[in-house]
């Protein structure tokens, strides 16, 4: 019972943190609740399909199917998060000013909505597939049997969701003036963390060099299985024993998103200046 609760908590915590950050970061986007719910449902369906097809997938790509699949999902999510942040660096100011969607076209809302949908669906799919396999393994192998496994799993899920809800409630208390800057940083760190995990799978598939495995070891100071370690892993991608290549990927994604945001933001400011000049004439 306890084992089930713990593992499901760990998996659902990661997904819950991603969902909370996305929920906060997309505040004010029309019908984002519906996009998020659709994302969770699609992710759950996908997780069941992936869990059922795990055997076939594992045999693909000379036994590296799982690694490639995980890396692909993570890289896709990194792309979506990057796109979201760059989009926000153009529209964030007006959203903070109005905190409403009135200023934006329905088309843009839909495009941003599909980003929310995909990011959440991919997160639930990844964490969910592992959970399904685990519960299946435990329910059929332990003396506890099905009922206690499900009971444990549900309490783990509840605990993971609770942390997500608390994070979301905490984020909402941030004054609107800083709100989107802070959620922007969180989304950036989330993207960098996923890039680092993608790198780990590509190293495992022997497609990337590790450049130091591990580069350092802080497991004695802050274990990744401790409560704080788990939280930091979910929020900023903390790993006690990362490979050098993971750090490179992490930093590169941070820099790329920051550069994209700066470029989009400065173009927006230039446009605004030209408008003011034109108005003055």
């Amino acid at each position, binding site marked *: 019972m306890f084992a089930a609760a713990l593992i499901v908590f760990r998996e659902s915590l990661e997904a819950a943190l991603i969902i909370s950050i996305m929920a906060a970061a997309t505040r004010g986007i029309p019908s984002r609740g519906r996009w998020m719910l659709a994302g969770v449902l699609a992710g759950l369906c996908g997780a069941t399909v992936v869990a059922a097809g795990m055997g076939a997938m594992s*045999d693909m790509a000379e036994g590296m199917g*799982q690694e490639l699949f995980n890396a692909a999902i993570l890289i896709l999510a990194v792309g979506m998060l990057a796109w979201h942040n760059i989009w926000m660096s153009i529209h964030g100011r007006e959203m903070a000013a109005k905190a409403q969607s009135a200023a934006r076209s329905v088309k843009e809302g839909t495009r941003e909505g599909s980003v929310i949908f995909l990011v959440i669906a991919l997160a639930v799919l990844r964490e969910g597939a592992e959970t399904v*396999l685990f519960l299946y393994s435990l329910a059929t192998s332990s003396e506890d049997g099905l009922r206690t496994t499900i009971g444990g799993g549900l309490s783990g899920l509840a605990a993971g969701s609770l942390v997500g809800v608390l994070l979301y409630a905490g984020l909402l208390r941030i004054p609107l003036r800083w709100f989107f800057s802070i959620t922007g940083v969180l989304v950036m760190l989330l993207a960098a963390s996923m890039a680092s995990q993608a790198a780990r799978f590509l190293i495992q598939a022997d497609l990337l060099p590790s450049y130091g495995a591990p580069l350092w070891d802080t497991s004695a100071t802050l274990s990744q299985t401790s409560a704080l370690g788990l939280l930091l892993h979910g929020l900023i991608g903390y790993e006690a024993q990362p490979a050098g290549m993971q750090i490179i990927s992490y930093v590169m994604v941070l820099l790329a998103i920051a550069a994209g945001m700066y470029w989009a933001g400065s173009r927006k400011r230039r446009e605004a200046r030209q408008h003011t000049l034109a108005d003055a004439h």
Partner: protein
Amino acid sequence: MKRLLSLTVLLLAATATLAAVDEFTLTIKDHAFVPKEITLPAGKKVKLLVINQDATPAEFESKALGREKVIPGKSTGTVNLGPLKPGRYPFVEEYHENDPAAQGVIIVE
């Protein structure tokens, strides 16, 4: 063009030979690792074949090695490792990680 092609084939063949690395096996039976300790050579790439003899899926996980891989029931998963520095690298079968039988260690020397 033809020469370029044959050169490419030759290069591919060469890398394929280079890629032939030592293989080691680890078995999971009744959610327990056999053996629980495995010694691998330092400084070179190796393949660890994890054979899951159980009917249920298992997950080989090692935070120290940065590896996690689901091994479906009655199947074998390949885990690429190395080049590694000498040391001790613990691993677990994540679905039963609290059970001592599902914990093991890779010794690299």
